[in-house]
């Protein structure tokens, strides 16, 4: 029975990260490989503020979100914006953007290693005191955020504008939408999502290290691509599937094969089911 809860918990962690990743891809049509590092920066900011002011939950949450937004903006302004517009996903310019985001993610990761040391640090549990409580809190958080993002995209003005940009950027420009202004909005919004995800996940696993960024970044990449780029519901489904698959492998083959599952899944889907990726949808 606890295997099911465990796989649900792992699934929810991947769901949380994949949401923000999907948002950036849907609106900007760029795979931002530095997303894992934004997540890690937020985790460290939360850990630092939790140590500085143990009690206030609000301060910790806001510090995580602000740090994530700042990291997200810096990635966007330094690595993505100067390379200009990426119209189609398979153009060589998109490969340059991917390589530049990778470069930036190395910078962030190694800066964290230098500052905080390569070894994992304890992440204080401020939401629930026990493991089970924090896991429950995380799952509730994941479901709420999924619901909130879904509602925001469907019913708010900004959500409609973002979906319009995702569907047809040039037409959005012709209907009076300030596309570069809204893209910035999307970057901040998805980074904040990464901040919240960092909070919920790290207090569940109770530890934070410079490498969780690339670890969860890859997992998010797998979930988003397999789930269909820009498709929130697809990503949610694949996150749960991946979560249960990983828990299953830890039971059979032992925990150190756990990371390999995500990559095997991605290779399997990309090579054997080469379906056309229809783009421009953000649901």
């Amino acid at each position, binding site marked *: 029975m606890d295997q099911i809860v465990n796989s649900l918990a792992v699934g929810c962690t991947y769901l949380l990260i994949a949401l923000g990743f999907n948002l950036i891809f849907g609106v900007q049509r760029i795979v931002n490989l530095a997303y894992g590092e934004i997540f890690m920066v937020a985790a460290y900011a939360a850990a630092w503020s939790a140590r500085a002011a143990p009690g206030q939950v609000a301060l910790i949450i806001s510090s995580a979100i602000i740090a994530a937004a700042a990291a997200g903006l810096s990635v966007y302004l330094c690595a993505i914006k100067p390379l200009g517009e990426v119209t189609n996903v398979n153009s060589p310019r998109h490969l340059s953007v991917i390589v530049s985001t990778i470069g930036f993610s190395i910078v962030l990761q190694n800066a964290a290693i230098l500052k905080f040391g390569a070894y994992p640090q304890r992440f204080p549990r401020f939401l629930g005191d026990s493991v089970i409580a924090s896991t429950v809190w995380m799952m509730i958080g994941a479901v709420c955020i999924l619901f909130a993002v879904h509602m925001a995209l469907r019913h708010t*003005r*900004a959500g*409609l*504008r973002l*979906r*319009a940009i995702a*569907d*047809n950027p*040039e*037409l*959005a*420009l*012709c*209907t*009076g*939408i*300030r*596309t570069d202004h809204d893209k910035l909005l999307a970057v901040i919004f998805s980074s904040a999502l990464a901040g919240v995800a960092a909070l919920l996940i790290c207090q569940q696993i109770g530890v934070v290290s410079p490498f969780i960024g690339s670890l969860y970044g890859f997992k998010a990449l797998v979930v988003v691509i397999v789930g269909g780029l820009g498709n929130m519901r697809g990503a949610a489904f694949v996150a749960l599937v991946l979560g249960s698959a990983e828990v299953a492998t830890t039971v059979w083959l032992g925990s150190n094969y756990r990371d390999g599952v995500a990559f095997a899944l991605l290779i399997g889907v990309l090579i054997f089911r080469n379906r056309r990726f229809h783009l*421009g*949808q*953000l*649901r």
Partner: protein
Amino acid sequence: MLQVDNLKVAYNGAAVINGVSLHINYDESVALIGPNGAGKTTIGRAIAGLVPYQGQIQLMMSGGTTSLKHLAAWAIARSGIVYISESTSIYESLSVADNLLVACAVLSTARAAKSVMLTNLYAHFPFLRDRSEQRAGTLSGGQKKLLAIARGLFLIQCLKTLSLEHPGSVGAPLFPLLILDEPSHGLSPQALDTVRQALRDLNVAFLLIEQMARFALNICRRAYVLRNGVVVMSDFSEAVCENALLRSYLGLSADRASTLWTKS
């Protein structure tokens, strides 16, 4: 009125438009016709601010002239100039209602005004009402074009109500103009008729960029004929005679045209 003078556009070395001047008065329907490859689409995109160009495009209004050259495409759209492109003229993955409501999402119009405008728009285009929740991609070719025109009208109406309520807010002065790029492209004959009917009783100024000359001349009051990036003829629709049209269209030099068509 909208004044375009000495417009020049080059695309990686090849001059697509060399020196085009035209004007569109408030609430006037103008056709821009010519054989394909004459550069008609480029003029439409230049007015909408999607293509860099030399020359001047200005809005001569009672309150003074404002140049559109340095305005971003979204600012031009907010001054009422709506560009409806040939192929991707609607948001395929959004629902029909969402396609229309994007205008409100941009201008944050009041909820009450939004529903009023929506209802009288549905009255104008009844088929939109019963398919308002479906994905716009599932519409037929003709219906997609009508949805694009409806979207443009809805944006112009939002702009009008906004400028009535608090005049100073809209950036450029309001000059409602629909730029339709080859609406006849890929339409079946009866869809063509519904679009023609919709355009004929449209009360907003529009620039009809079209390759099928007779279709455009039948709808618009005035016409410019374009060939190889230069305006060859500009006259009222009735005055554009068949022979002159054929000569400029099929590019035949004057003497060969007369020999071929002495009969017809």
